[in-house]
C-alpha cells in the first residue's frame, strides 16, 4: 500500500456513513542525533555541496524511521494547498484564512482506529478507494504542533 492509495479515499464511519475524504496521512519521524555531531554539521555541509539547504534557518532534521500515525479526514478534497490549514501560518492575509475556512471540520483519526482499507486495483477504479473506521474511533484535532516546538 502507498500513501497515494490512501489520499483522497472516501472515509466511512463504522456504520457506513460517509465522513469525508482522506486529505493527508500523518507520520511520525524519528529524529536522530546528527552522526557528525551537533550544530556544526550544518555549516560543513554548506561548503561541501551546492543544493543543501543554504541556511540553518530552515528546519532540517536527521531522521530515522517514519511510523504511520493516522489519517486526516476532511469534509472535501485537499484542493490546491495541501495541508496549509494545519500550520500556524497567518500571512499573507487572506489566503491562509480562506484555506482554513475551506477545511474547517478536518480531524485526525489514529491508524489503530482504521478497520479496513479497500484500494481500487483495476485501472480507472479510483472511486472505489474506501477507508472504514473502527467502532469507537475518536476524532482528534488536526493541527500540527508548531514548527518551532
Amino acid at each position, binding site marked *: 500500500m502507498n500513501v497515494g492509495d490512501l489520499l483522497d479515499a472516501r472515509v466511512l464511519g463504522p456504520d457506513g456513513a460517509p465522513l469525508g475524504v482522506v486529505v493527508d496521512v500523518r507520520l511520525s519521524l524519528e529524529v536522530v542525533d546528527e552522526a557528525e555531531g551537533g550544530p556544526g554539521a550544518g555549516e560543513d555541509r554548506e561548503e561541501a555541496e551546492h543544493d543543501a*539547504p543554504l*541556511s540553518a*534557518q530552515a528546519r532540517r532534521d536527521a531522521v530515522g524511521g517514519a511510523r504511520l500515525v493516522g489519517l486526516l479526514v476532511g469534509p472535501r478534497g485537499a484542493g*490546491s494547498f495541501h495541508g496549509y490549514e494545519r500550520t500556524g*501560518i497567518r500571512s*499573507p492575509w487572506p489566503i491562509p484564512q480562506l484555506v482554513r475556512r475551506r477545511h474547517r471540520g478536518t480531524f485526525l483519526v489514529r491508524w489503530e482506529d482504521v478497520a479496513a482499507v479497500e484500494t481500487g486495483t483495476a485501472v480507472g477504479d479510483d472511486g472505489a478507494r474506501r477507508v472504514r473506521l473502527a467502532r469507537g474511533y475518536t476524532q482528534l484535532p488536526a493541527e500540527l504542533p508548531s514548527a518551532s516546538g
Partner: protein
Amino acid sequence: MKKLLAAALGILTAVGGFVDIGDLVTNAVVGSRFGMSLAWVVVLGVVGIVLFASMAGRVAAVSGRATFEIVRERLGPRAAGANLLASFAINLLTLTAEVGGIALALHLASSVEPRLWIPVAALAVWLVLWRVKFQVMENVAGLMGLLLVGFAIALFQLGPDWGELLRQAVPPSPPGAEHPASYWYYAVALFGAAMTPYEVFFFSSGAVEERWTAKDLGTNRVNVLLGFPLGGLLSLSIAACAAVVLLPAGIEVSSLSQVVLPVAQAGGVLLLAVVILGIVAATFGAALETALSSGYTLAQYLGWSWGKFRRPARAARFHLTMIVALLLAVGILMTSVDPVAVTEMSVVFSAVALPLTYVPILVVANDPEYMGEHVNGRVVNALGTVYLVIVVVAAVAAIPLMIATGAGS
C-alpha cells in the same frame, strides 16, 4: 560597472521579459497607436515583477529551492502539472519567437534571408547552453542587451515635446481614434509581458546557479531593483520613440524594421548599428532565458538534476529537454510562421500560468519552515496580495479581449 555586473542576472532576466522580440514590436505598436497613454502599465508591471522576483530570489537564496520546485511542492502534482503545461507552452512559443527574432535582427544587419539565419541562431543558442559558464552568459547577453539604451538616446536626440509626452501619459486615457477594447488588450499584453512567469523561473534558478545563500539577499535586492526598472525604461523609450516619430505620421507598426526607424532618424547609421546589435543581444538573451526556463520547469517539476553549473552529463535530461525545445522551435519556424504573431498566443497560456506561479511564491515566502526569519514583511504581503488580484483579473480578461479585438488589430 561592478555593480552592473553583480546585477547581470536581474538585467538579463528583465531584458528577456521586457524587450524580447514580441515586446520590442509590441512596445512600438503601442507607442505608434496609443502614444504614452499606456506608460502606467509598464510602471505597474515593473513594480509587480520586482515584488515577486525578489520573493522568488529570496526563497531560492534562503532555502535553496527554485520556483518550480515550490510550485510543485505547494500545489501538488495536479495543479502544478497544469501550470507546467501552460508555462512550458509559453516558454516554447517565446523561444520559437526569439530564435525567429534573432534571425529577423540579423536580417536587418545583413539582408541575408531570415530563414537562412534560423538554424544558425538555434545552433548558437544551443552552443551557449551547452558550453558557456552561466556567469559569462548572463554578463555578455545581459549587458549587450543594454545597448538598447540607444532607444533612450534616440529619444533625447529627437528632442520631443516632453510636455506632450507627459500629457499623453497622465492621466492615462485611450486616444479618441482607438477602441477601448484594443486599449485594454494592449494594457493586459504589456502587463503580462512584464510579469511573464519565465522571468521568475529563470531568476530563481539563476540564483541557485550562482549559489546564492542568505548572505546574498543584498545582491538579490540590487538585481531586482536595477534589472527590472532598466527593462521598463527600455520598454518606455521604445514606445516613446514610436510615439514621437511614427504616431504623427499615421504609421501603425507591424514589423521589426519599423521599430528602428526613429533611431535612424535621430542618430543615423552609428546609433542604428548599436541598436541592431542590442536587438540581436536582447533576442539572444531572451532565447537563452526561455530555453533554460523550459529545462528548469520540467526538471524541477519531475525532480531531475538540472543546472548549467553541472556538466551536461550530470544533468542529462535537463539538457535533452532544452535540445528538444530548440529543435521544436526551429521546426515551428520552418513553417514560415511570423515570430511576432507566435508571442501573441502565449497570452492565452498566461491565464493559467500567472496565478499558479505567483500564489505559491507568495505562500512559501511566508512559510517559516522555508524562510526562517526571512519571511515576508507586512508591506510586501499587502502589495503581493493586491498584485495577485491584478494578476488574476488581467489573466482572466486577456482571453476575451484577445478574441474581441483580433489580438489588438
